[in-house]
């Protein structure tokens, strides 16, 4: 068991595009930098490596630069707590690290938004990015029938990827209206790089049925998915499939910034022009400051990295690029906003909280997230409300006000250790999960 204490000039949480860019430019200024990330490898979700091969050129570029500067990599470690100011606690299985920092860059990325509908808890109903990640990790998909549903540009990217891997993509069901999508397509002309990506996808998706104004109504199956009913052109249609890949755009991972006391603007972490949060010395870059995709994440990451290393001149040179990429972010928000009909997706007996199996009918009588937690255990399971919290925010207009440490289930032994140097491990503390 290694429990080294380690101290860094700049600590970056998250090894996706924003974190890699931030760590690289900071390290190139000569300061000591580390990246800590829950995943097994760098790249985050968007540049996740595939066990089937295939490389991301851009990812390799950043990885080569950060390895040249000997950025310390702590992959497979997730940050669970801040036991005192300037210190983060990270664990990997039974291993534990205390990470001390002078400057912290939060680049925790985004996750998919899930909405409950009847049958969504069946095995083989997954997130869109979720299924793609599983396929990249070796899930055999050749010849499997897949319905891709929900909203956001990720749906097309996932459909194209799965098709390339040999899946039979039966339908892409997008809840946004044709009108919104047409405006989105017209606006893309202002973002040449995005337009090319879009046209590339269109080629790859030739022959795949695409429905706008469409969403899943119910997933069917006994112990696993067999079919899905979607609403398309105002009518329900039943489609046999092996997988339903369903995500409703992305949500920022703001649990760590909230734990650190950073203020939000709406859903996103508030930052100044240097990407500094409302907490001195804590910077934030990428999706937690707004869902803007990889270009914005790379620019914000570099600005945060330069700023954290004290090179404000270099940071300032990237302001125009950031302003351009932020316009794309606002376009995404407008295009893929959820339509109100989706509030009618869950039936009274549909589980909204999957950890504690709390049905929609038990939530509706309550006035707030807090009241529902106290009375129904909604959000009290191991995901700590990461799935059902955003769902109830959309369905019932609730807002989860705060986070509680540890921000992921952690071993009691590890949590006790920071405070318990005097205390011998094993004295009544079993290394079990606290859920």
């Amino acid at each position, binding site marked *: 068991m290694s429990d080294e204490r380690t101290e860094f000039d700049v600590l970056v949480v998250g090894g996706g595009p924003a974190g890699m860019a931030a760590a690289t430019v900071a390290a190139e200024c000569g300061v000591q930098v580390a990246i800590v990330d*829950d*995943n*097994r490898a760098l790249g985050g*979700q968007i540049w996740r490596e595939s*066990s089937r091969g295939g490389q991301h050129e851009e990812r390799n570029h950043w990885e080569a630069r950060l390895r040249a500067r000997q950025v310390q990599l702590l992959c*497979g470690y*997730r940050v669970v707590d801040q036991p005192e100011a300037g210190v983060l606690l990270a664990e990997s*299985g*039974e291993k534990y690290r205390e990470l001390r920092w002078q400057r912290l860059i939060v680049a925790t990325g985004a*996750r*998919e938004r*899930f909405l409950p509908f009847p049958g969504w*808890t069946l*095995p*083989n*109903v*997954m*997130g869109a*990015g*979720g*299924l*793609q*990640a*599983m396929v990249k*990790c*070796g*899930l*055999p998909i050749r010849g499997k029938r897949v319905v891709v549903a929900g909203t956001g540009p990720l749906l097309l990217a996932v459909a194209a990827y799965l098709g390339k891997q040999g899946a039979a993509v039966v339908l892409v069901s997008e809840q946004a209206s044709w009108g919104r999508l047409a405006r989105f397509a017209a606006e893309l002309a202002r973002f040449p790089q995005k337009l090319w990506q879009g046209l590339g996808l269109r080629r790859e998706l030739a022959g795949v049925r695409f429905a706008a104004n469409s969403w899943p109504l119910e997933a069917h199956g006994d*112990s*696993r998915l067999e079919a899905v009913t979607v609403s398309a052109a105002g009518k329900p249609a039943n489609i046999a499939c092996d997988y339903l890949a369903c995500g409703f755009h992305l949500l920022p991972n703001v649990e760590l910034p909230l734990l650190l006391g950073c203020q939000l603007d709406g859903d996103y972490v508030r930052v100044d022009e240097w990407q500094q949060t409302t907490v001195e010395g804590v910077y934030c870059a990428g999706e937690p400051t707004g869902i803007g995709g990889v270009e914005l994440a790379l620019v914000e990451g570099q600005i945060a990295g330069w700023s954290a290393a004290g090179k404000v001149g270099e940071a300032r040179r990237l302001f125009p690029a950031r302003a351009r990429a932020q316009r794309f972010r606002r376009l995404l928000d407008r295009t893929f906003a959820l339509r109100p009909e989706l509030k009618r997706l869950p039936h009274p007996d549909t*589980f909204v909280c*999957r*950890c*504690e*199996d709390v049905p929609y009918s038990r939530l509706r009588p309550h006035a707030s997230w807090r009241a529902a937690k106290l009375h129904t255990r909604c959000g009290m*399971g*191991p*995901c700590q409300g*990461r*799935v059902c919290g955003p769902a109830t925010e959309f369905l019932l207009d609730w807002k989860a006000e705060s986070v509680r440490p540890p921000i992921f*289930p952690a071993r009691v032994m590890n949590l006790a250790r920071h405070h318990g140097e005097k205390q011998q491990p094993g004295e009544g503390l079993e290394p*079990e*999960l606290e*859920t």
Partner: protein
Amino acid sequence: MPSEITLRVNGEPVSVPRGATVAVALAIRGQPCRKSVTGEVRGPLCGMGICFECRVSIDGVPHCRSCQIACQPGMDVRTDE
């Protein structure tokens, strides 16, 4: 190095491509990951370590997120019965 590795899922041998996660090994066997508190069978949802639906026991350690852990030769994976 062999391109496949073999581990055990509920005592039965399963071969997976090197680099595959434990969640993938379970999917190849058609084996759900856990039973929910009301007894529903569940499989992975998010694929990125957030939702905890893919929890299993690995080599005696409970509550491991199978989507975040690479298969190792001889690993002993147990799901809820």
